[in-house]
Each structure stands twice: as C-alpha cells, then as structure tokens.
C-alpha cells in the first residue's frame, strides 16, 4: 500500500521512463509501462491485482474499461481526479444486477456476441432476484457466480460457470454450512455431490450430466413447484415420465399434493437406479402385506428371474467363445434381452405388474432360448468326442495288422 502513497510520483516517473523508451532501466512493477494498458487505462498503477484479473476476461478485449462499471477517470495521474467523475468505487450489491444489465439487456450491444438479453428479467423472477428486491442483500447477484473482474465465458474450463464448476459455484453459498443453518435451507451442494448425477459429471466426465442449473434454471434459478417436478425430471427421463403419467400414482399423488419423482428418489442426493428398491420402496407408503405393498416385490422377483437367466446365458456364451463357437448372434440377443430388462425398470414407474412382466418375460425367454441352443451345441461337441472310441478301435486294428505283418517273416521273391 506504500505504492498508493507515492502514486503521483511513481506515475510521473513511469510516464517519463516510458517516453524515454528505456524499459530496461525502469523500476520493476509500479511505473512499468506495461501497467498502463488500453483496457484498464491508468487504474492498474494502483490496482495491479484487479487489473490483472480484469484483463484475463473477454471484457478487457471488447471495449469495456474499469470506468465502464466503476466510473471515474482512467487517464488521470492523480488519485483525486481518477476517483472523480461519477466514481462509484466498490458497488452496492443491490445495484450490481441493474448495472450489468445496462449492457447485457441491450439487444443491439449483445447481437455481435449472440448472447441472450433476458438474463436480467429472468433474474428478477428468480428466488435470488425476489429476495434482493425485498432488501435481502445476502443473496446471489451477478458477480457472485460470474466473478467481479475475471469474468470468463462458460466455454472456458476454468470459468466459474463451466459445466463442471457450476456445482461448486452454487455450493459457495448452498454448501456453506453456516449460511445454510442460518437461513434454514438444505445443504444442496453436499447432497448433490453424493448423487448419481455428480458421479456422472465428476467421476465419469459426462459433461451432459445435470448440474444445479439443469433443474433450477440459470438466471431464473428457483425450486420447481410440486406439480412441475415430473416435468423437470422428465426433460431427460422422458420414458420414465411417460410410464409414470400412465400409471395410477400420477393422479393420486397430485391430488394429495405429494411431489412426484422426489417422493421416492429424493431431490438432490439422487441415487443410481437400484433394482432392489423395487422390493422395499412400496412399503414406504403402502402396508407391507397389502395387495399394493406386495406389488413391488412381485415385480422385483420377475426382474431377478429374468436377470438370472440372462446371466446364465452370458456364462455359456463365454464358454462358447473359448471353444470358439460362432456367438456374434448370441451376443446381440443378450443385448436385446438386457434392453427389455432396462425397459422393464422404466415401465415399473407405471406400477402395473402386468406391464413389467411383459418385458421381463421377453427378456427371460431370450435368455432361456440362448441357453438351450448353446446347450445343444455343447452336447454335440461332447458327443463328437465319443467318436474317439470308434477311432481308437480302428487304430488298434491297424496296429494289430502291422504287428502281425511285422512278426511274419518277409516273403522272398
């Protein structure tokens, strides 16, 4: 901060040195001609860290300057002038969204970048925006997610808003244990990180896996309403939603204001689909011994029966590959059977056992067909070994004849 005290002198010196074009003799950092740039003017002389951060962002290359947001004069060589001219300094949090919107809601200015201009109006509909309008300044504003100076586009992997960084960006507040306790909200970040979605994104590197914004919206972030949940999940899980809506659960749960999907699967900590839950999940709401309570275990039994048959078939195919017997067709049919099983799990969302049984039965029959066909082939292989008996009979006969011939004295001419 001693630099700030000697700013005018240093700046004058820097200018003199720049004019003398003797950079090698210049004092390091302060006053170096490189601290005065087109993007940040002379602000970087006193605010080097902010200048460096700012100049990493695309703003610095697009005719946005320090003064565009902060006001003041970036050509002044003394602090008083620099901080004159409508200088705002550190901005009031409540005014940030409107300030950013002054450019980002301007259709004409955003057109070259093909950027949307509805972020501000969306923000105003978001829980963040509504609370901010109500005077709660703790809620997220633009700079909390995008950064203040080092604003990077989502396409940059180190950006706060790159897909794989979004959970951490939201988690700065929604995973902050103090904040979460104070405001009586869920620790959504911690829950999300245990979910199958996070596993897909972070462990398997699937950048199409859903993050916070996939369900809650980006600028208009808000929790989905009870009746919206199946629509939000159904954006990706289309088949599950179709079966769910066809089944009895959809109407009855809606009538009793029970949220769809999350009633069984949870909201943030969504587990990977587990077949065994089919056997235990019904008992959460229905009596275990009742007709409805038994439905899940019955579907599970169908499923597991079919799975056993398919696994047996796969073992036989592996054996056949060792021989090798032609198995390309069997590999394809096992895939087909597994597809039926996958569809059976999806169909279970309609909670109609006969619908599930339609798929499990098909899967099971493919499994048993493969087994019987391969068993037939193995049997043929085995029985062909019995020909060794016939073979050895002839071998022994031949050896016998040769022995006889050997022991008979050769005929003389």
């Amino acid at each position: 901060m001693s630099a700030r005290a000697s700013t005018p002198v240093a700046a004058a010196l820097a200018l003199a040195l720049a004019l003398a074009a003797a950079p090698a003799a210049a004092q390091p950092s302060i006053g170096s001609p490189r601290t005065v740039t087109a993007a940040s003017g002379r602000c970087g002389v006193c605010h080097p860290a902010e200048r460096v951060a700012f100049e990493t962002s695309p703003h610095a290359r697009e005719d946005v300057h320090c003064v565009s947001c902060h006001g003041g004069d970036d050509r002044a060589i003394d602090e008083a002038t620099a901080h004159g001219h409508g200088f705002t300094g550190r901005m009031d949090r409540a005014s940030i969204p409107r300030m950013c919107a002054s450019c980002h809601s301007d259709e004409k200015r955003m057109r070259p970048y093909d950027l949307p201009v509805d972020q501000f109006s969306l923000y105003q509909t978001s829980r963040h925006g509504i609370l901010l309008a109500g005077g709660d300044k703790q809620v997220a504003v633009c700079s909390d997610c995008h950064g203040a100076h080092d604003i990077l586009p989502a396409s940059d992997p180190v950006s706060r808003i790159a897909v794989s960084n979004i959970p951490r960006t939201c988690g700065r507040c929604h995973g902050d244990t103090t904040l979460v306790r104070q405001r009586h909200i869920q620790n959504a970040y911690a829950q999300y990180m245990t979910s199958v979605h996070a596993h897909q994104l972070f462990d398997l590197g699937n950048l199409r896996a859903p993050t916070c914004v996939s369900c809650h919206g980006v600028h208009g972030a808000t929790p989905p309403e009870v009746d919206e949940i199946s629509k939000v999940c159904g954006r990706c899980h289309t088949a599950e939603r179709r079966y769910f809506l066809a089944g009895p659960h959809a109407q009855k749960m809606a009538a009793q204001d029970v949220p769809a999907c999350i009633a069984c699967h949870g909201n943030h900590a969504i587990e990977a689909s587990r077949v065994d839950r089919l056997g235990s999940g019904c008992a959460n709401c229905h009596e275990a011994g009742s007709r409805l309570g038994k439905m899940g275990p019955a579907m599970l039994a169908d499923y597991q029966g079919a799975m056993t048959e398919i696994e047996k078939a796969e073992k036989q195919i592996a054996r056949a590959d060792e021989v090798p017997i032609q198995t390309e067709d069997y590999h394809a049919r096992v895939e087909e059977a597994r597809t039926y099983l996958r569809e059976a799990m999806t169909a279970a969302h309609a909670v109609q056992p006969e619908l599930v049984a339609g798929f499990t039965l098909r899967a099971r029959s493919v499994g048993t067909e493969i087994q019987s066909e391969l068993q037939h082939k193995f049997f043929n292989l085995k029985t062909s070994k019995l020909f060794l008996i016939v073979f050895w009979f002839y071998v022994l006969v031949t050896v016998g004849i040769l022995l006889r011939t050997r022991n008979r004295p050769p005929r003389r001419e």
Partner: protein
Amino acid sequence: MSAGGPGRPREAEKSRVDSAIDWLEQRLNLTEIFSFLTHFGIVYTPVDTRLPLRAALRRIGASPLVSYARWPQVLGLLTALLFGLETVTGILLAFYYHPTADGAYDSTTAIVRDVPAGWFIHQMHHWGALLLVGVVVARVIRLFWDRLYHPPRELLWLSAVWLMWVALQLDFTGRLLPWDVHSYWSSMRGLELIGSQPVIGPLIGFVLGGRVITENVLVRSYALHIIVLPLFYLGGVWITFATMRRIGLSMQAEGGDESSRTTWHRHTLNLLILLVLLTAGLVTLATLLPFRFHGPADPYSTPANTRPPWYLLSPFPLVQLLRAPEWVAGLVLLLSGLVVPILPLWAARHPRRLSDQGLRRLGIVLLSLWAVFTVLGAFAGRR
C-alpha cells in the same frame, strides 16, 4: 524300401514304372537325392551314391540294422517326425493366418471355427508343438544321462542342445501368434526375462523389434517362427543324422547288444506303428484337451497371475519372491544357456577334475533345483 521290395503290380505296369525310373536315372542321380534326404532322419546307414537307386536300396535292405524306432533311440526319431508334422500343419495354418495385431486373433479363431477341419489342424499343431518341446528336452536329459557327449559324440550332444534351444524359441515365437490375452501376457513376461539377460538381452530385443510386444514384434515372431527357426532346426536335425551316419548308433558302437539288431522289414513296420500311435495320441489329446481362447490381447490391461512360459518359470521366483533385480534372473538364464552345452564336453576332456559320476550328481542337483524353482515360479505369489 517299398520300391526295393517285392513288386505287386502286373508285368506291363511294372515295366512302365521301371522305364520311368530308368528315364529319370539317366538324367538325375536319384541315389544322391535319396542320400541327401536320409540326412534328415530316414535312414542312417551310409548310402553308396555310385549305385543306381534300386540297387542302393536293395543293398541297404539286405543289411541288418539297429532298430532306432524303439526306446530310447526313438526320441531322436521323434524330433524329426514331429517336426514334419509341425511343418505340414504349420503351412496349412499359414494359408489363413494374418500376422497383424488386428487380424491375428480373429484369423486364428476363424481357422478353428469356420475353416473346414481347421480346428483339427490347429489342435494338431498345438499338441504337436507341446510334445516336440517335451521330446527335445527329454532327449537332452537322456543323452546326458547315457553320457553321449563323450568323443566322438560331441556334435551329437551339441546338436541336441541346439535342437532344444531352437524348439524352445519356436515355442516362444509360436505362442504369441494367436494374440490371445493369455499368450500375449505370458510372452510379455517371458520377453522381460529374456530381455534382462546381460549382453544378449538387448540383442534379442533388437532382433524381435522391441522389448515390449507390439505389432512389429508379432510380425517378426511370425517370420522367425515360419522361416528362420525351422531352417535352424533342420540344420540341427541334419547334424544329428550326419554324425550318426559317420559314427553309428551308440548301441552299435558298444557293439554287444545283438537283440537290438533287426531287419528293415521289422524296422519299417515299427516305424509305421510308431507313426500310427503318435498320430492317434495327438488326435486324442487334441479332441479331449483342446486349446481354449480367452479373448484378444489388450495391451492396456494385464490379467491377474500372468506367468512366463513354463520353460522360463525357473528364474521367475528370483524376481517375484526374492526381489532380486531383473538382471540377476537374466544372468542365471544366460549362464544356464552356456553351462548346459559346454560343461559336459569340458568334463569329458578333464575326467580328473569332474568325473562322469560327479557330473551326473551335479546334473541331478541342477535339474531338481530347476524343477523346484519352476514349480515355485508357477504357484508363488498367485492372487
């Protein structure tokens, strides 16, 4: 011999065959060609190349001989017979085999699965190779035990060891060719040991095209397996039978055993019986214990418990259990490769320093050590 035996065909036909042979005889020295062929294991009696073929055969047929189609002389014969079998089946396999990383496994499975009788050819080649390696190793042990490295049989001993080394190399290059996951990784382990030998390790790596098994190594293994090593092997067979022709069989030289003298008639039939039983045995093994495929090789994932081929297992525990550096195992391998052929020859020349009895005892000790380490190498450190 059949040409020299009593003729069945009618007079007219016989004369036609005779005239054809006469026609050839005037243009080629058939006896010389026959004599050349005998160097590869048909007859070991000297052939008089000045006589016409039929007269030469008659003379051979008339003389009594020591039957070598019986234990233990049969081992020498088997090295030639099995090599013949491997050559025939190998040529048939080469018609369908693709020596590329992409094509090797698929073409091998296609031979076994799709080509008519392909499975039979492949299994015969596989089992014939296993038997051949067993036979050459057994033969070296037998020659050692019966002290057949004494003059004038030094070359017989050296050629037997040579045949063993070449057969093991044929096995090593051949087992890589199916590009099966097990064969690939066992070759990989083997190559690590071979490559860790001082001096010749890097040389072998250079000849094979790398210390890690890649497609280049596959192609070179193939070339070595089907061209270079078979020629080396034939050279060994030739030396074996050429020395035998000069100095005769051991029993003959020792002279006494009259019961081993036999006629060509008996000998030929013994040979035929041997061939029939050998083929029958191989067919049985090939049918009951066929080679199994375990999926194509994947250089990016090592299956558990990979071991080098059995004949390279003995230096393996040094690395695996005693944590010795790899070059120690390589040195052991190299020294054993030098000691096996040279030590008996040296002992034969210096009987005072190392008697035959002492050498036998040393041989037993080394062989049991080798066996123990081989078993250790096969089972130690399995997960």
